[in-house]
């Protein structure tokens, strides 16, 4: 039984929709223009700080240290450092044990997280706004006073590492392999060492402690806060980060990145994966064409029951059993635009062929105006959601600050995205195809195609 008024209300809403869409658009533009959308860099008592305050009820506070796999002097140290943070058992820091840290932050409703990217080790706390002093103190304590003990390394850290190694799938290994052929050492070193990576002679509690000394000092960390007031940060960062050393004596492995390109094939049981990668956009240099190209290649459909407009989504719809998406991995001095395809059987190879065909079509100028508009809209959404919703904005802001650049300016970047034309996009795609690609295939090598077969130069 649907009442008459309910029915008419639905039609009224439908009638009002264009107007509603207009107001939504206006709201969106206003949000993009507001200064709170970008991280503001400052320096508090020698510590680089980037903060953004949207006056929300929760805060995310992170210490981003320039200690990712790119900078590690020996393989596996970044992973060891990440696992030691917050986790280890007795007297994790000189002041309190890991158990106490966990229970106290549980009582305050906070979440603690430690993870790493290729460039940074990130210790992150998410908590209610008023708990800023507690978590600022905690993060400072973890980076400056953690004890790297032998028994914790054997009882906890090694187990955590083995667990995560068991979870590495073809897709992760293929992406590592693509980075490896693209950049060789530095950015090319694997994000997570596999079971077969010989790390045991390098990774132990003493080497991790030495690496922690290199990584956690004022010159090498950035504090990034999302949702904390500038005044609060100024008040609490200064006293709590006093104990963090200003510089370290040793040197991290900081060679500049160089793009090489090539092909790598790894036999593995389980799913198949192919990564096709090209030199992409780095963090410092704005390159809107790459973002739009990522939007155009897309992959995951945002609409139900339809593959959507993106090239990869169309290709996977035609070849069931495979998934594909494009992403630009931006680093401080290099980038990698990667098309990642995973799935079962020969469908992966077919999607790879389709993806390269699609890229060639873009380079030949086969992008309709409508698709370009959609791709620009998608690129804008990607940018805003990355900087606002997910944690990547936090990490990027920190990494950028450490590299000496300014955090990404959202409003300006949005304007740059608007300026991308079909011709610019065509030129960018052509340039990618003319250079050397980095291709990696992991899985059943009998069915996975070579880069030659895809029509790429390696």
């Amino acid at each position, binding site marked *: 039984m649907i009442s008459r008024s309910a029915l008419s209300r639905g039609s009224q809403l439908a009638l009002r929709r264009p107007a509603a869409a207009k107001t939504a658009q206006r709201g969106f533009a206003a949000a993009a223009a507001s200064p709170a959308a970008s991280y503001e860099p400052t320096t508090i008592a020698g510590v680089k700080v980037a903060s953004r305050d949207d006056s929300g009820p929760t805060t995310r506070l992170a210490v981003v240290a320039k200690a990712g796999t790119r900078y590690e002097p020996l393989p596996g140290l970044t992973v060891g450092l990440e696992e030691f943070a917050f986790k280890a*058992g*007795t*007297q994790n820091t000189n002041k309190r*044990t890991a*158990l*106490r840290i966990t*229970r106290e932050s549980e*009582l305050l409703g906070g979440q603690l997280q430690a993870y790493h990217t290729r460039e940074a080790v990130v210790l992150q706390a998410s908590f209610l706004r008023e708990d800023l002093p507690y978590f600022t103190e905690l993060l400072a304590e973890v980076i400056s006073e953690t004890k790297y003990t*032998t*028994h914790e390394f054997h*009882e906890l850290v090694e187990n955590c590492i083995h667990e995560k190694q068991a979870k590495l799938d073809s897709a992760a290994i293929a992406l590592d392999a693509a980075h490896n052929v693209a950049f060789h050492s530095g950015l090319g070193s694997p994000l997570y060492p596999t079971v077969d990576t010989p790390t045991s002679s390098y990774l132990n509690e003493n080497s991790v402690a030495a690496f922690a000394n290199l990584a956690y000092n004022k010159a090498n960390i950035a504090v990034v806060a999302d949702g904390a007031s500038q005044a609060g940060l100024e008040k609490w960062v200064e006293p709590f980060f006093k104990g963090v050393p200003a510089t370290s004596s040793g040197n991290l492995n900081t060679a500049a990145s160089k793009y090489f390109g090539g092909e790598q094939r790894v036999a593995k049981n389980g799913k198949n994966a192919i990564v096709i990668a090209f030199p992409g956009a780095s963090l410092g240099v704005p390159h809107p064409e790459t973002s739009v190209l990522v939007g155009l290649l897309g992959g995951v459909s945002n609409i139900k029951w339809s593959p959507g407009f993106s090239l990869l989504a169309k290709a996977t719809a035609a070849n069931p059993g495979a998934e594909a998406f494009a992403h630009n991995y931006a680093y401080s001095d290099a980038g990698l635009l990667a098309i990642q395809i995973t799935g079962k059987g020969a469908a992966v190879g077919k999607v790879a062929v389709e993806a390269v065909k699609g890229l060639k079509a873009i380079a030949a100028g086969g992008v309709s105006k409508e698709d370009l508009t959609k791709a620009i809209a998608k690129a804008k959404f990607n940018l805003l959601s990355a900087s606002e919703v997910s944690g990547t904005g936090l990490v990027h802001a920190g990494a950028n600050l450490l590299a000496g650049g300014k955090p990404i300016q959202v409003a300006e970047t949005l304007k740059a995205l608007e300026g991308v034309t079909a011709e610019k996009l065509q030129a960018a795609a052509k340039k990618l195809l003319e250079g050397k690609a980095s291709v990696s295939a992991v899985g059943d090598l009998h069915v996975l195609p070579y880069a030659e077969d895809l029509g790429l130069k390696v």
Partner: protein
Amino acid sequence: MSAPSLVQAVAKRGWLNKMLKPVSNWYINAAGYRQMGLRADDLISEENETVLAALQRLSPKESYDRIYRIRRATQLSLTHKLLPKNEWTTQEEDVPYLRPLIDQIEAEAAEKDALDTLAVVKN
């Protein structure tokens, strides 16, 4: 694991410490473990979880030396002999190497217990 002990209380009072030191030395000598090349911490009963966990945390060298001392002492006990006097454990060698680890593990357990039975007071 820990039995009640007055050691800390005695050590704090210099005069009492001075008075009891000869008694303690006599007792250690009478116990006879040093004559068999053992250290005091070798005598701690290892048949409980705490001490087993502490033994796991010994460095490989310490663990090897401990086993060597115990096997040597067992052999001496079987043959009803003592070590030659120059091989007896000296006072400098008789250091607590296992007790600190046991204390650490007990502190961990006590803290976990305290946090598990915590009563949160809101004001």
